[in-house]
């Protein structure tokens, strides 16, 4: 899946001379946690997070202060340079960036210009789509030997019935690397015929899987 398929195209931005106060307001108004800072030609020159803005705000314990810190320009606290991605990058790469660099938002740029934004929330939404749990379905787990050609063999069994597959995931089988677990979500309330088919083809079906209980 490509970045451009999941990115948000309407991005709330600020110019470097806007005040910290404006940033604070925008964060609250739009329920967002990141604001890219752009110059006149729509290039991303920095980014601020809600944490940056909060760090720069007066303490809630100091009452009756003039709060003049808030009048400072946003460029005084923005992070730079900014990690960005391209619309044609893969969603998986964005997930790696989030994991490795430990932040939760990347602006998307094309020809140096800002065209979108992806946050951790968009990533999680995509993950839910990938697992297929957002549509009506039953889940079946099949333990298989880890060798080439096994997936088409298994899915062929599903194909025999008029049952639509809404997602397929392959997990490592932790106790023994010789095996994998194929998790299939199928759009039926009655998975029993399919399970019988799988079993009669010699597959081990874990449905549902719980330590101590034989399926």
């Amino acid at each position, binding site marked *: 899946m490509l970045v451009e398929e999941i990115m948000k195209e309407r991005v709330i931005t600020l110019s470097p001379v806007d005040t910290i106060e404006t940033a604070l307001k925008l964060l609250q108004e739009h329920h967002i946690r990141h604001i890219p800072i752009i110059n006149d030609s729509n290039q991303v020159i920095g980014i601020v997070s809600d944490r940056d803005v909060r760090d720069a705000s007066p303490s809630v314990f100091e009452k009756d202060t003039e709060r003049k810190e808030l009048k400072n320009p946003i460029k005084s606290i923005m992070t730079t340079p900014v990690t960005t991605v391209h619309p044609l990058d893969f969603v998986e790469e964005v997930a790696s960036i989030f994991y490795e660099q430990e932040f939760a938002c990347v602006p998307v740029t094309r020809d140096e210009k800002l065209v979108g934004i992806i946050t951790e929330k968009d990533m999680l939404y995509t993950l839910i789509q990938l697992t297929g749990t957002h549509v*009506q379905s039953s*889940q079946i787990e099949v333990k298989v030997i880890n060798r080439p050609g096994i997936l088409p063999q298994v899915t062929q069994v599903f194909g025999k019935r008029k049952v639509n597959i809404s997602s397929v995931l392959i997990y490592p089988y932790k106790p023994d690397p010789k095996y994998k677990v194929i998790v299939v979500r199928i759009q039926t309330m*009655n998975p029993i015929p399919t399970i019988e088919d799988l079993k009669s083809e010699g597959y081990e079906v874990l449905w549902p899987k719980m330590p101590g209980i034989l399926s």
Partner: protein
Amino acid sequence: MAKDARDTIMNCHSGFVYSNDFTNYRFREDHPFNQMRVVMTKELLEATGKLSDKELISPRLATEEELSLAHSISYINAVKKAGKGELSEEQGLEYGIGTEDTPMFQGMHEASQLLVGGTLSAIDSVLEGRVKHALNIGGGLHHGFERKASGFCIYNDGAVGIKYIRKKYDYKVLYVDTDAHHGDGVQWAFYDDPNVCTFSIHETGRYLFPGTGNVNERGLKEGYGYSFNLPIDAFTEDDSFLEVYESAFREIVDFFRPDVIITQNGADAHFLDPLTHLCSTMKIYEEIPKLAHELAHQYCDGKWIALGGGGYDIWRVVPRAWAQIWKIMNENIPFKGDLPVEWIQKWQKNSPVPLSTTWHDPANACKPIPRRAEITEKNKKLLDKSLQLIYNQKKFNSL
């Protein structure tokens, strides 16, 4: 749970919706959804002497206008065409018709119309005061969507019935769904409606269809806080089921104060049911209607309509479970002891498995479940999460 002290004999004049034509709702010879269950239940009750012809209510056909309270016209038209063999496979898929779960069959529109009409007949009988309670075990098809058939359900009689109550009587409705599958169709139909509160207890959707019914599905906009879910663990047994169910139902009814209660009494949470992984016994099928009966009298002047639902061991489980609803509805005391011999003799001939001969399941009928303590603990935590908003409000009100 309920002690014998609560088993006070009552005498509630109730209605039993029935037509032989309920069995016309049949997808295919080997399909697990089989309305022969309704016939078996009725005959079981007749054999006990607890159901007579004068208590029967003939279901009417729901009109298209009534169906359109919860379904789009284009979907209704598609179902009609499918029932006459005029809908292509391609066209059907858009509406969830012609799948493994809900194949097309001759006359499917009329057969479904009758199930919905049965629920409307039950509702009118109760709300117009002809009977105290009413039972339509032909209904409870809670997976039907506005423009999509799914999970063996074409038209959603519960959703149509509740819309009908809202329109005709303007009552606040509490819908309680004890089917082992999440009551998704009804929940989504009233997700933003604060006058309809839905409560579904079901096996977690991790493995089981439809996969929804998470504890954080609480409603939307105006309806936020009026949708409750208890997705209990696979392998949950009687005590844990009843513990969380009773607590939740009591809290929810006290919070919502409905004018009428509709229960969906799917009988597929039993350990013998082939499609689910809950491990309850007949015990819950005595306690579930008892609690509904008690709370309907306490909060709604008795206005209670009970529907059927899932239930795929039609030989050993469903007739016993549903017969108990009727018995409790009328007398508040469940059947005990042996089933009528003549009923067993008649139906044993058709059954591929030996029928149960007693109303209760023998002790230790279900194989022991490891990790019972953990399952019980998880279900309790779930209960707290599900009722969080009610608890918050109580705390706020007491300040």
